[in-house]
């Protein structure tokens, strides 16, 4: 467990998480809806648009 915690610390998980969120935000910003039958309330995502 300690080894895993140390590895996670060196991997910088926060950066990977932020990258994942940015990609999802960019997809959401450039589309009408992202999920098949569910719409999450969109904040202002103009700066994340691809157009």
């Amino acid at each position, binding site marked *: 467990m300690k080894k895993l915690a140390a590895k996670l610390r060196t991997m910088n998980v*926060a*950066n990977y*998480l*932020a990258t*994942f*969120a*940015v*990609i*999802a*935000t960019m*997809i*959401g910003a*450039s*589309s*009408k*809806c*992202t*999920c*098949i*039958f*569910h*719409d*999450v*309330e*969109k*904040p*202002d*995502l103009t*700066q*994340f*648009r691809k*157009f």
Partner: protein
Amino acid sequence: MEWVAKRLTNYILAKEIITEADRAAYEYGFQTGIEQTLCIIVTLTFAACMNRVWECMLLLVVFFLQRAYVKGIHMKQYWSCFLLSCSVVIAGLYGSGRVEIPENAELIVTLICLGAVQIAAGRFADDEDEAASCFFNKQRKRIACLVILTAFALYVVGWKNGLFVVCYTELVMFVSTLAQLGKEKLGNKENG
């Protein structure tokens, strides 16, 4: 999901990777990202058990691409959406290889549904700005062309399961778009 998204955003905020101003965008990203990933993982797992992984991938690509630029019916709760999404995908995969429809009929149904979805999508109340509206319309047409090309390619190649999956996706898109259109019309009537 909202709770998980908030916790993850708080975590990267604490690590000073983002600022407070970006909180809403990152929360949205986490929520939609996790919801989509979960749906893809569950449906692919079921597809693997049914030996229909390629059909599942084709269905998800066609479905997600079209849903991104065509408005359709939505559920209020995430879990009802999740269950409906997974059931729709699994039902399509179950039908491929079992439901016997002539290939010509599948191609014709695909084209008719696609055309109807394009017409219906143009009738939705537009709540986007001009740049977004123009972009979405262009993308919708491009994806429609891509779906037509894919359907013809599958017809020529003779991959029956693939053609069934595309036909089924278009049928679901058609029903979903009609349902949303009906919901909007009903809402307008109630509002006056």
